[in-house]
């Protein structure tokens, strides 16, 4: 099950559930009823599938508060062709194996198994070999 409803679709192929504002034409994530950039209320839900390019990255080496999954894990920002920079986990936990600008594809990854035995999933970005389309 997704770690939060309304964040992504599992696919395949997976996609982020984003908002697209008819007022300012910007995308936002997660999808909200009001545009967080221009306050317009004309927001459509769109699916963003990537691929994108890595913008900046690091790795988390110690479990942050409330996190029960494995460490280390990659952490960074990916630029999607729609003009959006998205914060997320990276499947690659060794920063030296990644370089800014490289193609990244969207993935859905397991976090941990909850008290009722269900696998909890989240979105993440994985190194890919597909070049993103131009904006």
């Amino acid at each position, binding site marked *: 099950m997704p770690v939060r409803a309304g964040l992504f679709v599992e696919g395949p192929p997976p996609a982020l559930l984003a908002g697209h504002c008819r007022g300012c034409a910007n*995308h936002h994530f997660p999808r909200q009823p009001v545009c967080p950039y221009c306050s317009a209320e004309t927001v459509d839900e769109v699916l963003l599938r990537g691929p994108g390019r890595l913008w*900046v990255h*690091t*790795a988390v*080496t110690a479990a942050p508060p409330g*996190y029960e999954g494995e460490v280390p894990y990659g952490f960074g*920002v990916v*630029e999607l062709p729609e003009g959006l*920079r998205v914060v997320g986990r990276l499947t690659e936990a060794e920063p030296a194996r990644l370089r800014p600008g490289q193609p990244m594809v969207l993935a859905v990854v397991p976090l941990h198994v909850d008290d009722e035995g269900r696998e*909890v999933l989240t979105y993440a970005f994985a190194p890919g070999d597909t070049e993103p389309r131009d904006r």
Partner: protein
Amino acid sequence: MRAVEVAGIGIHPFGRHGDRTVTDMGVTAVRGALAEAGVGRGGFQAAFCGTAYGGVATGHKVLGALGMTGMPIVDVEAGCASGSAALMLASSAIAAGQYDTVVVLGVEKMPKGIIRSSFFEPWQEEAGLAATPAYFALRAARLMATSGVTKDHLAAVVVKNRRQGVGNPDAMFRAEVTAEDVLGSRLVCEPLHLWMLCSPNEGAAAVVLRAAGSSGARPGAGAGPAPVRLAAAVLRSHLPGAVLSESTPLAGLVDDSVVPPTTLAARVAYEMAGVGPEDLHVVECQDTDAARELLSYEELGLCAPGAAADLLDSGATSLGGRLPVNPSGGLLSKGEPLGASALGQVVELVRQLRGEAGPRQVPGARVALSHTVGRGANAGVVVLTR
């Protein structure tokens, strides 16, 4: 608008204080500030208290323990800038003639390690996205990717601030460190090593503000130290769109032109105070991590965009340089009790302007700037002059 001056300062050392409560520490700081100002019971008309994790009625508990209640007491939260927010509210009210004398305090008692912030939603914690130092690391990595800043520069900031902190009896860490020590400490999130991050800790600071020229002094009290002018105290939040903003969004735009909250606040503060960055003699700025100090150089206009490494390398921001930054040792030496940190900066700068800073004195300092920024986002910029 009336001019506002700092009539007294008080501080409880920042560090680890075992059983001492937030109230105990706040009492120490407030008593110190009141004593300096020569203000007693009934001598102030309002109190503003900055705290992020102090809980319900934090300011009331401090003032209640002193038997000084009945006036409006307002507890404000603005993350790392909580003290700046309290100072902004108090100074605006005095300038407007609402009050003559106001007590401003900041207090915090934080657990060790990474703080569990009520800022994040439970699912963000579960997904590993509540990793506060990782956001700092991404900002550091971007700074390195877009300027000449290297990991050695990050270590050099720590070495500078820890050296400066040796002279500050109110700091938590008072031993010099070497770049090798810093780079050899545990890697938290590349490029940030443990010693490049400040420690959340415990402490309190307070100031008494007064309308310039008003007589709030207790009969029989001494003249006290020369007053310092509070020329500006400005708070600003973030503009939307910057993915690495202290507002910690999950996404942002491909747009590097979004003005950060620190710059928004600094522009207004410079205008209010009638000074520019070139007029400053001493600065205390947010060094939650070593990269944050360098970023602050740019955002405050202390250097051109991309020139923070050069400014650091020139020695200008070290004690003895043209514009010493964090002579107190900064948060890297003092630790960061959120609600108290901004007022701790103001305490340091008032000491500098009075010429009371001992081994870390910046000679002839007459114009000083305090800067805090953090969750919210909130950025606070305060200008003090004499």
